[in-house]
């Protein structure tokens, strides 16, 4: 039974991290890059406005950081719950 509880809390922790990551994923691409571009047109990154830069370059950098942070956090969660390989 203890095993099952542990598995459940492991999965819940995983879902929490996934949810937060997907919110960031959504905000930096669909949010800043598309939906909020008109509202943020006053802010500039060099020669580009913020939304344009996120759509053509910035979102990709965020995606990269997101995956590596997720991989690192999950390694810790794996160990904490004793389910690492």
């Amino acid at each position: 039974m203890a095993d099952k509880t542990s598995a459940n809390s492991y999965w819940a922790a995983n879902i929490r991290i996934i949810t937060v990551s997907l919110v960031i994923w959504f905000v930096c691409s669909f949010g800043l890059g598309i939906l909020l571009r008109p509202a943020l047109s006053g802010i500039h990154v060099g020669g580009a406005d913020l939304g344009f830069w996120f759509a053509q370059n910035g979102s990709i950098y965020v995606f990269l950081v997101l995956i590596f942070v997720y991989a690192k956090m999950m390694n810790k969660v794996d160990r904490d719950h004793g389910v690492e390989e």
Partner: protein
Amino acid sequence: MDQFTLNLLVIGASFALYFGIAFWARASSTAEFYAAGQGVGPVVNGMATAADWMSAASFISMAGLIAFGGYNNSVFLMGWTGGYVLLALLLAPYLRKFGKFTVPEFVGDRFYSTSARMVAVVCLLVISITYVIGQMVGVGVTFARFLEVSTTTGLLIGSAVVFAYAVFGGMKGITYTQVAQYIVLIIAYTIPAIFISLNLTGHFLPQLGFIGGYAPTGGETYFLDKLDQVVTDLGFTAYTADTTNMFNMFLVTMSLMIGTAGLPHVIIRFFTVPKVSDARLSAGWALVFIALLYTVAPAVGSMARLNITTTFWPGAIDGETFSKPALSIAEIDSNPELSWIRNWEKTGLLAFTDKNGDGMIQYFNEPKAVADANKAVADATKALTEAAADADKAPLEAAVAAATAARDAALGEAMLGGQSLAAQGIVGNELTTVNNDIMVLANPEIAKLPGWVIALVAAGGLAAALSTAAGLLLAISSAISHDLIKGALRPDISEKSELLAARISMAFAIALATWLGLNPPGFAAQVVALAFGLAAATIFPVLMMGIFSTKVGKEGAIAGMIVGLLATSIYIFMYLGWFFVPGTNWLPNTPDAHWFGISPAAFGPVGALLNFATAYIVSTMFKAPPREVQELIQSIRVPKGAGKAVAH
């Protein structure tokens, strides 16, 4: 040494490398043939995934798409990278834990049904076969351009090369060749980009040059502002202009993202790593290697576009667009630095005609009124010249005169550089074709780089097309030999016979892809929209539900996949023609005719929602998945215990 010999040497050397690797990495078991023996490290797998993923379209066409589509076509940049976040978080680690060889195999086990597995096989085959056509065409075109052979010969050479390493090497051979192909293609893409960025902006990194100052005017004007000014002077939409349809842009991006995460040939790459944690990490490394090209692509596209525009309007470089006359034909033929224009004219990717006979090529965005009027004149003139000798010519001549008068009126109203077209003696845009692909293929010549860089771009284009083709062919052949033959028709087949069946399926898949490459249905761009839409609407949802739901059973999964498959393909066929046969579409492919303004390329997420909804509703009417399936779900959710893959 002439350019042809250089191309031959560089391409020949790259092929020798691929063959050498393939011989060294021969597959000796089904585990090696399907999943490279699960011994590929996360960084190496990331590099192989990047080559697997980046196709002829990414390498040759994407920069041009962005150059001419501007901000609107950012959908490709976000869509084709954001999918890796979904892969890393939602699919790759769990499918690696499951630890078998193919995507349909997971569907079959998780939904305890051979029928579900077969529906997944059908989806996989439709997606991968449509996708592979574009790659084969890309191989043929690149060969034809750089090795001066016909497209057909080029395609046949490409097929022979893939045959040599895919049939014998399987996933193992393909993986290590893809690593080599990645290195070739990324060097070929980045070198011209760095030079062009140094030229135009003084920045070594194209990513910084792109948002930096424009060098020829001392860096006081931003490069992007300069580009916007030059293209709007010529009547084009500004590069950074806002989208006209935010909702559609949102959906296309979503379709490309979830489509990427649902492409079987990408997913199976994550079966090759030793551990679950490696699968997560490997998606990150794949994106690192993909980002090296994708963050450079908008810089390449926008800079090449400015270069090509200022070539035709030399005044635009350091002053106003119209401060000097347009490029003259005499200059094109006498200036050796412009020899690329005639070279590319031969391939048909670039075309110009001196319509007004002033010896110069005026390049601008022809207003629709002028374009329509010019077409009316051409049609009337054609009718007159084709009329029978004894026919009454008077009404036809009158029609030509009327059309010409209407055209002259349109020219009097259309403005270019503050004067009407009529006042300048211009009758229309004279640079009649600028193909998207030229932005990458001709880039080294436009930027005046040495011959070996041009040869490298040729080898890079071939590497991109061949590596993706090989990955797709493996997905197709393993679905046939492992899911269809071993999974359904002959479950008692021995390991040795299955390996033979896998090699024969591979040979068969290559033959089919070659034939389709020689006789492509419709054109490649439409076909790719179908592949992404279907991956988004079928494979992605069924895998998600397989991992994250304990309630969805076989009935729901099968119904969901079928609804997603049918809804998406019918929506696309409605606008693009049934099976892409031109003229068989029910509705015109225009924004007004689209359902809620959703273009066919944007339908993927709608198909996915229909799939999810159908699966959940149908599942409430049937029994929940049995106990052993519940245990399977619990087991794939935790990394512990991931071992070597087992062949049942």
